[in-house]
């Protein structure tokens, strides 16, 4: 995984709460068996509307998405993270993320930064008044900056460390292979196994 320290880019304001993963990527796109190539699937239904924010030329190059509360609810599909990344997003800002989506993002290197809803609304104002405003997300300092506006964001300490280092989770776990083996020796015999 690529390490993440600081990202600067333009941002798109998404005025929706409860953006579920069925909206981020509808089920028909989940038939694919690859890990890449989902950019066409991102918000597939909403993108049919020419007025949808990502269809507006001023937000074409956005790499930061500023969304309403409860982003990523519903299905556990990690394809939602892949679609956002394939489209070019590096950071999602929201006041609340659904747990599984946030977990999936951390694994894939997409930063989900939590800021209060009033800061979201301030950033909506700034990026609507001036869509080309560079927005900087600094993971080291846990801080979002857009022009003269700045606020701290929340991110899980462990996820932050892994993103900063670009570490592979499975590799970290396999350092405990002996402990896993010891645990397995003590598992009760009544637990079910497949033959």
């Amino acid at each position, binding site marked *: 995984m690529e390490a993440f320290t600081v990202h600067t880019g333009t941002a798109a304001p998404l005025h929706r709460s409860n953006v579920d993963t069925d909206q981020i990527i509808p089920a028909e796109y989940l038939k694919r068996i690859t890990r890449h190539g989902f950019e066409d699937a991102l918000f597939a239904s909403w993108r049919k509307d020419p007025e949808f924010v990502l269809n507006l030329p001023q937000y074409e190059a956005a790499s930061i998405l500023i969304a309403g509360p409860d982003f990523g609810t*519903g299905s556990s599909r990690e394809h939602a993270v892949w679609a956002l990344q394939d489209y070019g997003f590096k950071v999602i800002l929201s006041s609340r993320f659904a747990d599984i989506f946030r977990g999936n993002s951390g*694994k894939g290197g997409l930063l989900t930064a939590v800021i209060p809803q009033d800061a979201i609304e301030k950033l909506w104002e700034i990026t609507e008044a001036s869509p080309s405003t560079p927005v900087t997300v600094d993971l080291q300092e846990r801080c979002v900056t857009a022009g003269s506006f700045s606020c701290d964001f929340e991110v899980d300490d462990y996820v932050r460390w892994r993103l900063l280092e670009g570490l592979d989770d499975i590799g970290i776990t396999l350092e405990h292979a002996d402990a896993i083996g010891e645990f397995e020796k003590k598992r*009760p015999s009544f637990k079910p196994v*497949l033959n």
Partner: protein
Amino acid sequence: MGRTLAEKVWSDHIVHEGDGLPDLLYIDMHLVHEVTSPQAFDGLRATGRPLRRPDLTVATEDHNIPTVDVDKPIADPISRIQVETLRKNCEEFGVTLFPLGDLEQGIVHVVGPQMGLTQPGMTIVCGDSHTSTHGAFGALAFGIGTSEVEHVLATQTLPLKPFKTMAINFEGELPLGVSAKDLILAVIAQIGTGGGQGYVLEYRGEAIKGLSMEGRMTICNMSIEAGARAGMIAPDTTTFEYIKGKPHAPKGEDWEAALAYWETLVADPDAKFDKEITIDAAALRPFVTWGTNPGQGLPLDQSVPDPQSFSDAVEREAVENALAYMDLRPGQPLKEIAVDTVFLGSCTNGRIEDLRAAAHVIKNRKVAQGVRLLVVPGSTRVRIEAEHEGLDQIFLDAGAEWRGAGCSMCLAMNPDKLTPGERSASTSNRNFEGRQGPGGRTHLVSPEVAAATAVRGTLSDPTDLVEV
């Protein structure tokens, strides 16, 4: 200090304590299906890592398979490739698979319990958010993404921070005619789609104790719709009797040892939850959603809400968007909403008891003209059992379609879809925009309400039907 049920199961599975970092948690059973696993198996191949415990991994085909012509090759070539990829991966890595056509095939969350693979005190994961279903047995069960699927395949563990705990205490007994589905829809409407974020919900009280395992599974299944990681119910004699004799249930001395352990799996009297809420079960009524998330619901005898009655601006905008998408007007009585399709099935309500409840309502009645009733059993065994009981004939006589087992119209990956603008009453779990097909509109209901709605053509509960 006393511990909650979730805390007990958690601590019994710690391989390595994190001390501020995530704990490394052992996973007792990993359920796999065709949609969220191919990239995970690719990951194993790319890194040369073996699958650590094929004997604790089981796969079935459910999300992306047809429910008709199941004996023929899958018509959609992209779906076919995905299903064939699962078969190849299971062959290569030695995973037990129940493919289309197999007696044990079905929705992954119906298959686990019916085989006895779901037992109290286990940790169970699957690349599917409705894994929370298995919490009905007192297991800690939760959905994971594909990276975590790969992690479990490679290590049989997951690094996780402990979940917070929330007790949902039900006071009183559930009134006659009110089902587990009504109960959980009411919970989600009360706490919201984000209300359970970060928590394991522990459902308690007489109303829960009085439920069958099927009803308990319906409740735990939809914990995720309240944003929770998992839902749990302490196991009791109802649980033990359900498991006893199932193919993978412990036997002989193992049964006695298991039972002794299972009986300890209840929150201690002095356990402290991070949050507790109380719900008056006796006041509940049949429930239905009117909006585009599962928290947007009301008792069926109410009317579509007015966006202006919501003080919070974000919520008001969400209601406006939902009513526009659903093509509903404020003040419209919910029972006047006409539907085109009724879907009976899914991991929420596709079990034998759900089919029995709906069949009981629809027996000797006809599906309203112009309405399509699709009945999709949750598993092949459920289908066979229903056919043995003659339920299929009751549905067919009423004018319904009787299908093979799978996820079907719950998520519309297969050809079972709503067309744009079409409206459904559905026993599934999500009423998101386009969930049952692009442009489709979904009202979530119980099996009993689904059956009554199919008969009348408008959202209805069984008491609205004239005697036959």
